[in-house]
Structure formats: C-alpha cells, structure tokens
C-alpha cells in the first residue's frame, strides 16, 4: 500500500513532521499563556483596573507562574468520584484541543532547513469535517468530568455544556455549507487559496455571522458561558477539579478559543492571505510574512472574545437554547437554500447579478414577514397558555403542600387560611379582595 498524499501534503520527511508537531505544540501553549494574560489585562483596562503587572515585564509571566502554583497545590479528589473516568476526562479535553489544530493552515509553502513545505501540519480532502469530529470528541471530556465528579454542580454544568456545545455545533456545521459550496472543497488549504480574489466573510456575510455566534457558544465563552454560571453552578463541570487537572481544562478552553478563531480566519477571512492595504506590497506573500497576517487575524477574533466578555451580561439558559434551535438553525438552512438557488439561477438561467440581488432581497423580505406573523401567533398562544396555567395555579395553591408553609405568590390566594375560605366561600382570584382582606385584618 502506498502512503496516501494530498497535494503537497504527506511528502514531508519524518524529522520535518516532528519539527512541525513541536512547533504547533509550543505555539499553542504559548498562545494560551499569552491569551490568559492578555484577557486579564484587557478586561482590567475595560473595568478601570490595572490587571496583572508584577511577574515579568508587563506581568507577561503571570499565567506561567499561575500554572506552576497550580502544580504545587493539593489535589482534592471527592469521595463520590468515579476514579478512572475522573482521571481520564481532563486528558481527553486537552488532547482533543491540541489535535484539532493539526489541519489549520498558517502560511503558504516555505523552506524549513532546505525543504520546501507548506506551513500546515497536514491536510486531506475532508479536513474541516475532521475539525468538527474532533470538537465533538472534546465534549466527552466535559460531560465525563461532570459525571465522574459524583457531585451535583459538576453534573449539571457538564450536561449544560454538552447540550450547549452540540446545539451550537449544528449551527456551526450549517454555516460551513455555503463556504464548501463556493470553494468546491472541504480541505482547509484549498479553501484559503479559493479566497484569493475575495474573502468569504464579504460574499457570505450571513454564514460568517452565524459562525461567529456559534463559535462563542461552542467554546462556552461569555455571553454564552452558562456552564460556569457562578451564581447557579459554582464552577460548572470543573467544580471538583483542582491542581493541574483543573489547569488542563483551562488550557483546553483557551486552545479551543484559538482553534475556532483560526478556523474562522481560514474559512472566512482568507487565512494567511494578506489583507488589502498590505497586499499592495509585493513582498507581503513571500517567506514567513503570511504567518504574521494569519496571527493578526486570529488575534482580532481573540480580542473580540475578550471584548464580548467584558461587555455583555450572561444569557439565560432557556433563551440561549431557544436562540440556537429556533433562530440560528432555521436562518442557516434558509440561507443555504438561497445561496444554492442563486448559484443555479446564475449558471442555468443566466440572470445578472443585479436581478439576483433584487430576487434575494424580495425572498428575504417575504421570509421575514412570514416568520414575524408566525412568531406573533405563537407568542399569543404562549400568552394564553401562561394565563391558563396562572389561573390553575390560583385555584390549586396550597400553602402546606410541600410539608411546610409557603407564602402565596402575587395574585394567589392561600387555601384554607382566610376567614372566608374557612367559612366555605369559594376561592377569589381578584387582587382587590386580597388587599381588602389585608385591611380587614
């Protein structure tokens, strides 16, 4: 059997593969340490604080020292834990976070020690699918960590994370379809090259916006950081983790942030291709320069993550799930159909771009009206249902139902406590009677 190759990939000598693997590993660890420091500094600045500035120049070594401190901390394993799963969960999280990065291109062909090679560990015809697959496996780490802790908060946090990540993975997966449609390939390097004339973020703006929303949900970051909603769930799935096991979850979260940012750069912002003012310079695409453009684009996304965290309050869980399932998914499906139809019309019926734009605008307007009518109808139905439930609750409220007295909610009338009820008068639902009774004493 011959070794499978794909374009320039699969031809590297073994020592070059090891150099690249080490390079990616070190880059990811350094990016994590840098991002944690950068996040703390930026959030501090946005909150009129200074942030970490003691350890090393500008506090740059802060996250490294935090890591060393964590290694010297006592490890507490809760007595209800399922030991084997409890130990393996952080390893799954960290490992999958690292290997998802294997197919991200961060530069064109360069020469490393005299060998011409692309700045990308590997690539194959379905590499974007591979990233999605690995991201799904990463969820195991979280859900198993929550389950194996044998504790309430981690369990709920783990379930929440996994439900959230799989829900937003659908929207994420759907946002890729339009990109594949235009690029005609699922390989990351081919998608970058296909964006040489124009970035997909420009021509496929709705896909890009859906992806950016979904990637924040996928990485459990604010305003979608419900798994670690401190007020509800303490620390979420890693409540019972301490020492370096906890650090591994943290590492995985930040690497995932870098990976989804890099994927956004690859699929929508032209990867390592120089942006406009720089592309006027002839040398912009030579040598190692493209890697710098790639890094800048990734940092823009990371800054956006931090900015969102400093700006937006956390969403409520039901709103969040509703947004994912009832807004992002239908919108992406409709968008895919519009893109596909427009492409067929352009190729088969030969419509001009202007006619296509007008047609698209009319279609979107009709869809908005239909969804608005549908939404207001379902809102009205929900209001009626809520009213009926309220009425039922009013009739059946029993202050001693749970075994101990509970005060009635506004609009409710406690059964069997009022004089009128004792006298055999039927329950009243009117607020004015309640106040009247309060006056009566």
């Amino acid at each position: 059997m011959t070794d499978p190759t794909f374009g320039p990939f699969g031809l590297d000598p073994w020592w070059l593969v090891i150099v690249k693997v080490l390079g990616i590993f070190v880059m990811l660890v350094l990016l994590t340490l840098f991002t944690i420091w950068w996040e703390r500094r930026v959030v501090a600045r946005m909150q009129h604080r200074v942030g970490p500035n003691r350890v090393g120049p500008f506090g740059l070594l802060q996250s490294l020292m935090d890591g060393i401190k964590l290694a010297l901390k006592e490890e507490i394993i809760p007595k209800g834990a399922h030991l084997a799963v409890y130990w393996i969960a952080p390893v799954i999280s960290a490992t999958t976070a690292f290997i998802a990065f294997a197919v991200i291109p961060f530069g064109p062909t360069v020469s490393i020690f005299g060998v011409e090679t692309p700045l990308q560990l590997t690539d194959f015809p379905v590499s974007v699918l591979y990233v999605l697959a690995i991201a799904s496996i990463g969820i195991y780490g979280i859900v198993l960590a929550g389950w194996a802790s044998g504790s309430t908060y981690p369990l709920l946090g783990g379930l929440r994370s996994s439900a959230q990540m799989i829900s937003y993975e659908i929207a994420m997966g759907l946002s890729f379809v339009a990109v594949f449609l235009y690029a005609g390939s699922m390989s990351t390097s081919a998608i970058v090259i296909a964006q040489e004339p124009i970035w997909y973020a420009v021509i496929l703006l709705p896909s890009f916006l859906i992806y950016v929303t979904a990637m924040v949900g996928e990485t459990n970051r604010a305003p979608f950081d419900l798994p670690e909603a401190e007020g509800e769930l303490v620390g979420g799935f890693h409540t019972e983790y301490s020492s370096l096991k906890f650090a591994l979850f943290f590492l995985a979260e930040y690497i995932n942030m870098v990976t989804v940012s890099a994927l956004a750069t690859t699929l929508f912002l032209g990867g390592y291709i120089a942006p406009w003012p720089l592309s006027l310079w002839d040398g912009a695409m030579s040598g190692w320069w493209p890697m710098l453009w790639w890094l800048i684009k990734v940092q823009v996304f990371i800054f956006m993550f931090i900015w969102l965290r400093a700006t937006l309050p956390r969403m409520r869980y039901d709103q969040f799930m509703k947004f994912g399932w009832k807004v992002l998914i239908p919108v992406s499906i409709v968008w895919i159909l519009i893109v596909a139809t427009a492409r067929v019309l352009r190729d088969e019926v030969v419509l001009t771009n202007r006619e296509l734009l007008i047609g698209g605008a009319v279609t979107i307007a009709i869809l908005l009206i239909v969804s608005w009518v549908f939404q207001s109808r379902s809102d009205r139905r929900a209001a009626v249902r809520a009213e009926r439930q309220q009425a039922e609750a009013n009739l059946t409220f029993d202050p001693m139902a749970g075994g101990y007295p509970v005060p009635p909610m506004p609009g409710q009338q406690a059964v069997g406590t009022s004089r009128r009820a004792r006298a055999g008068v039927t329950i009243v639902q009117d607020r004015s009677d309640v106040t009247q009774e309060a006056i009566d004493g």
Partner: protein
Amino acid sequence: MNVYAPILILGLLAFGFAAFSVVTASITGPKRYNRARVDAYECGVEPTPQPVGGGRFPVKYYLTAMLYIIFDIEIVFLYPWAVAFDRLELFGLIEMVLFIVTVLVVYAYVWRRRGLEWD
C-alpha cells in the same frame, strides 16, 4: 510520511503532556486528609446522591442529544452535496431541497410538540 500520521504524532505528544501533568500534580502537591474536604461541594449542605452513586438527571438533555443526531446527519449529507454542487447543478438542488424539506417536517413537529423549549 502519509497525511494522517502527523495527527497521530501530535496526538501522542498532547496525550503524553496531559498524562504527565495529571500524574505530576498528584506527586508534587501536598496531601493533608480532611473528611469535610473530600465531600462533594454543595455549599456546605449534605450532598445529594449523584449518578455515580445512583442519582438521576433531567431527561431533557437526552432529548437534545437525540435532536442533535438528526440534524448532524442532515449536515453530513449536505457537505458532499455542497462540494460537488457545480457538477450536480439543478438536479442536485432539487434533490437537496426535497431532503431539507423532509428534515424540516421533523423540525416543525418537534417545535410544535414543544420539544425545543426549556422550562
């Protein structure tokens, strides 16, 4: 080297690093036994029983996982169609519209039966 081997090497390195960290931490840290500390953290109250010890959790999450599988399979079918779109043209579009409408029937049913609500 073939295109898949580098992933394996990166995976081995990452696994080695993670396993090393997990094992190191249990050696380098101090160990002071304390009965209250190894209890499950529940803000100081007596911990409720959990699945490892025989508890229960909301079935809602199970439903979400099943819905995810339906839609994930839809996406997996959309990918090869999108890649081969320029060769399939109108025929491919009509086929895919029929497929998406079929999935949307399921979606509308789930929505109508309030399977997408959290309360």
